[in-house]
């Protein structure tokens, strides 16, 4: 069972990949669909989630928000702040939130 810190670290690494996916997609903040990786704490997840670039940009405005699949929430480090059928937006809380802020992508 991964520790809280390991969970957050994994999510931060997936966020880094998603940042790069959006850069490569070059969709800006439009309604264009972007296929991202689930930003949950399971290193073996790698499930893809399709959202619009605008949704992704809105999530990235908050350093502590992450996009995960339904059922991939780790309640010990995060709480759900927005629900859709295909994905959830979660907010890191406590020390997990601090770690997420510490590693917030630039720009």
């Amino acid at each position, binding site marked *: 069972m991964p520790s809280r810190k390991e969970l957050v*670290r*994994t999510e931060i*690494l997936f966020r*880094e*990949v*998603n940042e*790069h*996916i959006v*850069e*490569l*997609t070059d969709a800006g903040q439009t309604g264009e669909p972007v*296929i*991202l*990786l689930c930003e949950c704490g399971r*290193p*073996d997840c*790698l499930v*893809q989630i399709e959202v619009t670039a605008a949704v992704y940009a809105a999530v990235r405005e908050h350093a502590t928000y992450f996009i995960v699949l339904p059922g991939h929430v780790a309640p010990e480090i995060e709480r759900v702040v927005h629900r859709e059928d295909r994905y959830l937006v979660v907010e890191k809380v406590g020390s997990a939130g601090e770690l997420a802020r510490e590693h917030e992508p630039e720009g």
Partner: protein
Amino acid sequence: MRSESPSGQRGDLRFVQDVISESRSDRERRHEVLRRARRSRVRARNLRQDAVYFRDVALAQRWRLWSAGVVAEPPSLIPASWSTPQARDVEELLDRAATACLDCRDATVEFGATRALAALADVTAGHRLGSGHELHFFISATARLIDRLEPSLAADDPEAILRLSAMRRCREACRAALVALSG
């Protein structure tokens, strides 16, 4: 000669800004060309090393076949050494994985279904010199994402075949690097 009128000064200012902007974009283009050249050199070196390695392996196997009496004629080449080619060290395998990841990125970035893989492979290559945990995570994730995507990708045209081929090479290189990192 400097312009004295306000409109002339504005023109001069615009000219200076154009020159600065042009110079900046030239510098960026130059860096990009240098970066590509560096990658090509690394790739060429790796391919040369591969060629020598596989030639040695093939030669050793031909000698073994002849020794076992399976083939009548001995190989026409005598190997430089009789030892079996040694496994490569971790650093070399990591270099290969990083190069394979860059190739994979180039082959997959223009195709929507594999763009996430392109991004992951690019990030993995970028972490080549990073810390142990992160490097291990990204290499492992790249190999597993290729496992996951491969069955859904059809090899029905030359571009798709090249894409799949780059993905498979990348996965093999990543797995070899993971084995070396774990050992």
